[in-house]
């Protein structure tokens, strides 16, 4: 139905058989934003886990840096159809943040500076599946990519990896975040191509 333009699009990407369905390989790192890039001074940065009773557990930047860090190499998949393989991040595992938190809630809302939200089930954040990362490719994470720190939850579409992350709120029931309430999928598994509601 569409008009095919021979020669278009071959410069920067290729499809590869081991990518999730419908994805294309990219070598650069596209920036997608839903608003102005917040600039957060490190001495005012704070990360807060709020449990279902409303109790808060907070870390300052200095406290956060003192937590054990991990280096991870992961593939990332954006719902806009680009995938990037072998990205390297350094950050704190969510398991570390939840070591002293008791919760019976199954769902979370992840919050970022600037008002962004995205929902992720708690089990998708634990057991070595997600990090709050503050370095990309050996360098401090740039503001346009979510610095000072962003969530990295690579087994879900990358909109779940909230930029400028500043907290996780525990929820008894699943609720949609910023993109989920505007048509995107509640869970967002790239291997099942869960891009939009109902996929």
């Amino acid at each position, binding site marked *: 139905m569409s008009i095919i333009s021979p020669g278009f699009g071959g410069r920067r990407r290729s499809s590869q058989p081991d990518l999730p369905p419908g994805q294309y390989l990219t070598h*650069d790192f596209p920036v997608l934003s839903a608003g102005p890039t917040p600039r957060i001074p490190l001495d005012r940065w704070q990360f807060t886990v709020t449990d279902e009773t409303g109790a808060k557990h907070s870390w300052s930047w200095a406290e956060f840096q003192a937590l054990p860090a991990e280096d991870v190499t992961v593939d990332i998949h954006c719902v806009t159809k680009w995938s990037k393989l072998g990205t390297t991040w350094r950050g704190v595992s969510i398991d570390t943040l939840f070591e002293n938190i008791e919760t019976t809630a199954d769902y979370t809302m992840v919050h970022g500076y600037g008002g962004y939200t995205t929902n992720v089930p708690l089990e998708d954040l634990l057991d070595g599946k997600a990090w709050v990362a503050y370095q990309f490719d050996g360098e401090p994470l740039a503001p346009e990519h979510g610095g000072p720190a962003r969530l990295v939850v690579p087994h879900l579409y990358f909109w779940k990896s909230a930029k400028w992350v500043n907290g996780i709120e525990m929820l008894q029931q699943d609720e949609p975040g910023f993109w989920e309430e*505007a*048509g995107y999928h509640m869970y967002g598994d790239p291997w099942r191509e869960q891009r*939009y509601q109902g996929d």
Partner: protein
Amino acid sequence: MTEHELDGNAMAGDLREVFAVDVTTAVATCGGCGEPSVVARLRVWGPAPGLVARCPSCDDVVLRLVRGPERAWLDLRGAVSLQVPMPPLGAPAEH
């Protein structure tokens, strides 16, 4: 491939797939600060994963538009109202 800030003019095509009139000339009143703004003047980010239009006065989200392959989602909860230019009442029908 970096996405840059645009303005409401850039939403004209996607909105005209949904509406019969050009919504970029309508006035949207921001649900956050109450400031009215022509839709064409809204600050817009996108187009992917979706268009996000923010109030030029307070940066609150006024409108979101996500275009899937066979559906479009339009979220207007950030707008108190949309004032749409219309032909005068009682004007002769178009022939």
